[in-house]
């Protein structure tokens, strides 16, 4: 009886819902039409006699409107997702198994790439994909300390990346240092060992600059902090451009020594890596070595972060993100806590920067624009603030995704020879961010794992966790 009544009552409700969705979707379609007409409908092109001719593209407008309409409609009529539990219990050892599997894949990746694509193709896959993504994973993990754990919104993270890169590049190519080392140890020493000596120096230098930035912004919170850190990033870049006698300005620093295999250079000389190990010389070895080097650096970042989270300093960072005043009432020195977050985050940025310089062999201020900060920050935000795995996934998707666009030449067969998939990079980037923020406003991994537990490790839903405003 009651079920029949329910069914009878549900039918008009469903129709009403459908009608409302249709109305809403029509509105969206109209809005898209309004936007698409000026952007897509008309295109000016030069013909052979240098005249501008208008080329109507109403087909594109129709496609955009249809897409917007159907997407909105489907989104509205789709059955609501069941409410997710406020807490999530994971089976014991799940995290450990997952990280072991991911680590195995990571370590075997160069060999898999080599097996699948051969020596010629493997360089691209290891370098452009593997190393590139790992650099951003490392940067994301470094920034995660500042933004995700301590809740300090930093829009100028690229400054520390730049400090690390230039610290290595300038020290390694500096004539006084070279001649000093040649006089004291021997001519061959510095080019081989420069990277290994400068790597910690670059990290310390970046950490030092992190503290320098930290002092003036201690009292700032939220938007103000973001603006000042953004300005700091720009200041560093402008100094690099304009301090020509030291940094060589726009021309950049070239001839940066490449890292050696702990003293063995990657060349075809007698004492080179290939000759010593009785292998046939190929530049691939350097790429593979660089891959494992960045894996080691990224894993170091991850290990330190995970350890720090279980130490008082890491808990103080998270407490700072949650409530700064409560921290002070418990005797936590918030000044030191903020400065250590800035310094350690910056230090990892510096390591990544000096690796970047060593990998490229050439750096210029163009590599350290605000766009880099924005990409790293969006990796942290999309990944789920504070989540190491989320950051890694976000970096993989965002950087890997933009790199994969270069591989989509077959799309030209569909859209014509003038179609350049890479030009849509930023558009797709933005679209992905908008979609993710709708679907998962707190990032991909929207759970916080507690640093200590009494009986059971239950993940905390991100809704409970503060985003930090200072």
């Amino acid at each position, binding site marked *: 009886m009651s079920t029949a009544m329910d069914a009878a009552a549900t039918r008009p409700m469903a129709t009403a819902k459908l009608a409302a969705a249709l109305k809403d979707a029509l509105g969206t379609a109209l809005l898209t039409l309004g936007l698409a007409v000026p952007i897509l409908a008309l295109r000016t092109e030069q013909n052979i006699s240098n005249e501008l001719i208008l080329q109507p593209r109403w087909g594109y407008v129709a496609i955009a409107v249809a897409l917007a309409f159907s997407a909105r409609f489907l989104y509205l009529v789709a059955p609501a997702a069941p409410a997710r539990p*406020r*807490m999530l219990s994971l089976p014991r050892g799940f995290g450990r198994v997952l990280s072991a599997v991911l680590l195995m894949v990571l370590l075997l990746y160069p060999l898999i790439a080599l097996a699948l694509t051969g020596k010629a193709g493997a360089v691209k896959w290891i370098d452009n994909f593997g190393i590139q993504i790992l650099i951003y994973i490392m940067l994301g993990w470094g920034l995660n300390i500042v933004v995700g754990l301590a809740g300090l919104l930093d829009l100028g993270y690229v400054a520390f990346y730049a400090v690390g890169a230039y610290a290595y590049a300038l020290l390694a190519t500096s004539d006084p240092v070279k001649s000093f080392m040649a006089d004291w140890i021997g001519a061959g020493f510095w080019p081989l060992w420069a990277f290994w000596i400068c790597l910690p120096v670059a990290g310390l230098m970046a950490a030092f600059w992190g503290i320098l930035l930290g002092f003036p912004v201690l009292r700032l919170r939220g938007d103000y902090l973001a603006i000042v850190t953004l300005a700091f990033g720009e200041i560093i870049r402008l100094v690099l451009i304009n301090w020509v006698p030291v940094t060589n300005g726009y021309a950049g620093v070239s001839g940066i020594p490449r890292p050696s295999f702990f003293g063995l250079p990657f060349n075809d000389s007698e004492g080179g890596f290939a000759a010593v190990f009785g292998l046939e010389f190929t530049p691939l070895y350097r790429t593979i070595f660089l891959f494992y080097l960045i894996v080691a650096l990224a894993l170091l970042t991850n290990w*330190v972060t995970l*350890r*720090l989270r279980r*130490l*008082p*300093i890491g*808990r*103080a960072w*998270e*407490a700072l*993100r*949650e*409530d700064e*005043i*409560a*921290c*002070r*009432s*418990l*005797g*936590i*020195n*918030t000044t030191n806590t903020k400065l*250590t977050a800035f310094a350690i985050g910056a230090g990892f940025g510096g390591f990544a920067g000096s690796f970047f310089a060593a990998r490229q062999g050439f750096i210029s201020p163009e590599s350290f624009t605000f766009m880099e900060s924005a990409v790293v920050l969006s990796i942290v935000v999309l990944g789920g603030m504070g989540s190491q795995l989320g950051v890694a996934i976000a970096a993989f998707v965002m950087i890997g995704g933009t790199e994969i666009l270069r591989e989509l030449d077959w799309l030209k067969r569909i859209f014509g020879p003038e179609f350049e998939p890479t030009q849509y990079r930023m558009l797709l980037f933005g679209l992905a961010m908008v979609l993710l923020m709708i679907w998962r406003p707190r990032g991909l991994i929207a759970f*916080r794992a*507690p*640093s*200590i*537990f*009494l*009986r*059971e*490790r*239950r993940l*905390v*839903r*991100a809704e*409970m*966790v*503060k985003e930090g405003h200072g």
Partner: protein
Amino acid sequence: MHASGPPLLTVEHLSMRFGGLIAVDDLSFSAGRGEITAIIGPNGAGKTTVFNCITGFYKPTSGRLLLSLGEAASAADIAALTATGRRSGATAAGAIFLLERMPDHEIAARARVARTFQNIRLFPGMTVLENLIVAQHNALMAASGWTVLGLFGARRYVEAEARAVERAKHWLDRVALTERADDPAGDLPYGAQRRLEIARAMCTEPALLCLDEPAAGLNPRESAELTDFLKSIQTEHGTSILLIEHDMSVVMGISDHVVVLEYGQKISDGPPDHVRNDPKVIAAYLGVEDEEVAEVEAEIAR
């Protein structure tokens, strides 16, 4: 119950101005060692401002806030410390602190003053246990060798953390939150959050516990439980308590000493019975005309 000897906290001529507004005007009172002292008064009387001055969140415009740990400090010691620019000094058997000179986190860490807030300030995204562990930050920080030793899993830190968990368990037990130890603090019901905030403050092992309206928003049963809990803190741990409260059943039930503020000035000071019958206090709370105060005074005199 009434501990003898000189007070733990002595507030002398405390004034706090915000521009033209005088929130606290030449206030002097003291909080006895091992006693529960309540500060009451109508809304806007400056009670929370006094708290913020004591705990260092505000820098007082003028006045001296003296806290002495251990044996009582001699007047000469106090005068000597005040004359120097220093924040604290060691005495024959203890230490004295001039709170008005110290930053907030130092007051909590060195002078051992802990506080709770009128609008609860927990770390909502951290678990109940984590809240209590964060409260033991300074001890754990030292044990972790300022992070360096802890990073490599030094035994000293592991043991210190185990002790910290034990202390947290003790307080979880006391506030009946053991079952919820692994839940986020923001998920707790209101009354439990109030209890957790007190437990968190107690985890810092304070000499003086400052509670800003601990019974606000609690039902009568919870208020009664709170009263018992505060009593037990006082008797078992010897912690002195300074309390702002509007719930008179709580105030009159547990206070050894009540200070009444109105418009930033002290209008009464003494044991609960004395304050309860003070015509000035009655007038302040009921807002009667001056003539009526005189009448009431006359009646009491009779």
